[in-house]
């Protein structure tokens, strides 16, 4: 089980990691600034295995791959949203950060709740309830299973 960090709709990639940090040499140097404008405590409180739950259009805006990369580097296990902006969605899969669409979860959980996601089943379990997600197309799940696009390239 992991703890839920909850975000609203239309969270853009500038909020996930602001422009002034993305030119830093490494993801490790950037990650402490994740979600700085929305929740300054996020980077220090999030732990390995925790989840980000969001409403519609998560990750809209810039193509900066640093956005999913800092979340992965901080130990976020997956992002579950009502919908994703396409570049963030694609980038997350390419770097091996699980992302999945779940229409009903957002309204039924609070920040700090515990949840578990099974990507294979496409199911979130929390508070004794189950929420069905939209499973990834096989092709994209295949990229995730290999640990991302570069891991696949290295095989």
């Amino acid at each position, binding site marked *: 089980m992991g703890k839920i960090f909850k975000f609203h709709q239309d969270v853009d990639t500038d909020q996930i990691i602001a*422009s002034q940090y993305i030119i830093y040499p490494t993801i490790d140097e950037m990650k402490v600034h994740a979600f700085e404008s929305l929740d300054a405590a996020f980077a220090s409180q999030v732990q390995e295995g925790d989840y980000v739950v969001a409403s519609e259009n998560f990750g809209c805006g810039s193509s900066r791959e640093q956005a999913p990369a800092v979340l992965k580097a901080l130990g976020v296990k997956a992002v579950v949203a009502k919908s994703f902006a396409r570049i963030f969605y694609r980038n997350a899969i390419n770097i091996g950060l699980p992302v999945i669409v779940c229409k009903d979860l957002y309204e039924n959980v609070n920040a700090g709740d515990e949840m578990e996601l099974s990507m294979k089943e496409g199911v979130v379990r929390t508070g004794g309830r189950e929420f069905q997600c939209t499973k990834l197309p096989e092709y994209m799940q295949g990229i995730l299973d290999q640990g991302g696009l570069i891991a696949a390239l290295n095989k």
Partner: protein
Amino acid sequence: MGMTMAEKIIAAAAGASEVKAGDIHTVELDRLMSNDGTTHLTIDMYNQLKEPRIADVNKLVWIVDHNVPCDSVKTAASHKKMRDFAKEHGIRFYEGAGVCHQVMMENHVTSGELIFGADSHTCAYGAVGAFGTGVGCTDYLYAMVTGKSWLLVPETLRFNLKGKLKEGVYARDLILSIIGMIGANGANYMAMEFGGEGLKTLNMSDRIAVCNLCVEAGAKTALMEVDEITLDYLKAHGREPKHCFASDDDAVFAHTYEIDLSTIKPIVAKPHFVDSVVDAKECVGTHIDEAFLGSCNNGRIEDLRVGAELIKGKKVHSLVRFLVVPASAEVYRQALSEGIIDTFMEAGAIVMNPNCSVCWGSCQGVIGENEVLISTGTRNFKGRAGHKDSFVYLASAATVTASAIKGEIATADMI
């Protein structure tokens, strides 16, 4: 069954006779653009590959535009890494030539190409009927190494344009109106295709402005029908089209919108979302601290002419910084030859070298806590132009210049 422009370009790139929305195809890329926002990370990943290689170095274009000239020691390190790698591998490299998309349009892009750019506004290339789409650096690296990538064929939203924009209304107002109408994710995963008689009234600068901003509605790409204006533009820049695709009459669109250009009004997008659009008149009188005329969206010679005409013989308001940033060196030199730069400087504007500037909030011109910017840039997200508690309004070159003169949001008819 008929195909859309997006489907035809992907079919050609996939070597398939037919593709349809929802299919996933392996495609051959024509061109790969990357800038200093992410290239340093691409290089790090490249160096960790088991078998590092570049499929076709002639497809690669690298452009330093986000922080140029560089503004810190950290940035200098990232730039040096990019510069050295480009030199070592013989990659086409620009630094100081302008904002990446403008440089690409002036020098490289042609009709019918499929292009990955490690920047979300790569959809600008649709202005000449090229399928440009923004990707992250892992996608970019994979394509750089293999020459290929995978693409989910998008559905298409079709926009039939008719009529003509009224005097004092610009392409910028048109695309902000469309984004307001369909919303920030109204075209998510989709292509936005533009055609109709009204398209012929839009010049290439207008077309770039419209296509460039389509990602703010979530679009994967934007595409405009190729016509005489496109072919003239390509010819003037010494290029031939690769393919001149148009959607078939029986192509399937997810939705078709009819847009009468004569109904569009001057628009302002309020903080902190590009789809928070209102009639510019509703914002008149709003306090501003800075005004920005520039960016890949609105920093071309046509935009500078609009601003210069308004401000000629007048002064920038004493409490406002007015940044004027030509989108490329070519634009800058043209503006110099027309006396436009002199007009802006005479009025008290700060004219800067071509770069992304305050449009991306990590460059010269950033705004401080609680400050307000009116901008021809691409985004007005929270903190986009500097401090996390600052405010960005988006508008046309005319509205931005009028505001710089008045010291508060104003429309051109008030000058």
